[in-house]
């Protein structure tokens, strides 16, 4: 299980204390959700990249919207903010901005995955 004390040393990719609160203090559940989140991120990232390449903007908006919702639930605010930016430009079909926002989103995904992997190895 992830120790709460580790949260202080964590990068700001997600707020572990808040996440534990959202899990009603259930550490096992938090651990399970973190593992699921870690597994889902590369899949979502790939889907998003495919949608961007095929210029399927409604799918880009839908995937980034879902990613934002999950990130909010997981207390990963930087990722949810970045996903929101992608969703906004995709809904507005601002093609010139989508690519740039997706690069930023991918950076946040990478940072979060690294943080989660580090925590998983500590656990």
């Amino acid at each position, binding site marked *: 299980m992830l120790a709460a004390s580790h949260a202080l040393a964590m990068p700001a990719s997600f707020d572990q204390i808040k996440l534990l*609160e*959202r*899990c*009603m*203090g*259930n550490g096992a*559940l938090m651990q*399970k*959700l973190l593992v*699921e*989140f870690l597994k*889902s991120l590369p899949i979502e990232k790939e889907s998003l990249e495919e949608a961007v390449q095929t210029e399927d903007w409604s799918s880009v908006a*839908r995937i980034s*919207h*879902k990613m*934002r*919702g*999950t990130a*909010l*639930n*997981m*207390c990963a605010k930087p990722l949810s903010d970045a996903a929101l930016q992608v969703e906004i430009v995709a809904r507005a079909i601002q093609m010139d901005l989508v690519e740039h926002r997706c690069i930023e989103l991918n950076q946040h995904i990478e940072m979060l995955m690294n943080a989660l992997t580090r925590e998983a190895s500590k656990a």
Partner: protein
Amino acid sequence: MTGISSLAGSKPNGLKVMIVDDDPIALEMLANFLQVAGYNVELASNGKEALEKMRHYAPRIVISDVDMPEMNGVELCRAIRNRQSIQYTYLILLTSHSDSDSVLLGLDAGADDYLSKPFRHEELRLRLEGGRRLLTLEGRDMMIFSLAKLAESRDQDTGTHLERIREYSKVLATELMSWPKFEHVVDAQFVELIYLTSPLHDVGKVGIPDSVLLKPGKLTPDEFEVMKRHTLIGGETLSASAQAYPEASFLKMALDIALKHHERWDGTGYPFQLKGEDIPLSARIVAVADVYDALTTKRVYKPAFTHETAADIIYKSRGSHFDPDLVDAFAKVEEQMRCIRYELDECSVAIKKPAAVSPLPIQCENNLAGVSYPRCSPSHPL
């Protein structure tokens, strides 16, 4: 306040909740919260799956995401509202959308409430409380009427008596609402409560033997004494409930009505010979409603009277049987009473259609030489 501590006071008692979301993390997090709070939880990953599961699970509350594959949350709301269901399902939409268009779409589709993701424990708890309150009220109303219907089912003649009684009582109470004298006594809540509780007025009849309750013709003095006990039996039954749930104002009114609707303004009624305003207002209202209905419908012991005859009897009983104010109120709403009588006709009695509806000729089949009071009245011809 954290979720766990604030949930200590709530008792969902396994109320069935279905969560619908295509995000497994959101599903698990919400399910954990609800299970800790005492709810019975079922999960579905989209609207279509939710509808399929609802055939067997019958949730009282559905919490659904909006954006989902197969069938989204708005479509799910519409589908639930279009079902022929005997019980209400409380719908909460949960989404990361926060724009007003989504809110309007969801509410227009039949959602009762709307929450933004990520849900806050305390906010969701309070909204669920609101849903439970609404569902409890629905259950309470149905139970009260079912109880009254059960008691009435032993009485072969009464048909839609309870439906009419509550309508008559509501009309009379609504009239009093506009009177300065009753300004601080009769309000909208009073009207709702009397509509809810007046059908319980004869609940004590469950304790009256068939030989008396179903006897055609006149009762002997001894039989009439037995019949009079229905007020005390109903009173005792509801008194126990009112003591157990003192905060439930409807039980207090139901008790007043069941126990005292045969008291008379001049103190000659039963069971306590209460006089004037010692008789609760709710019981005074139901007394008029009950007598009017008994007079205008056919019973095993009497034919039906015309509205005019019944109204005449009520006017003549002003200040003796009935509260003078209530008779004056009756005079003001007489046409509404007649309409209710017509609308909720039992088909067993030919009655005069009210002029407000259609000017049909009088069709009363009973050529009444005299008048008689309802069977439970002391004036009932013994």
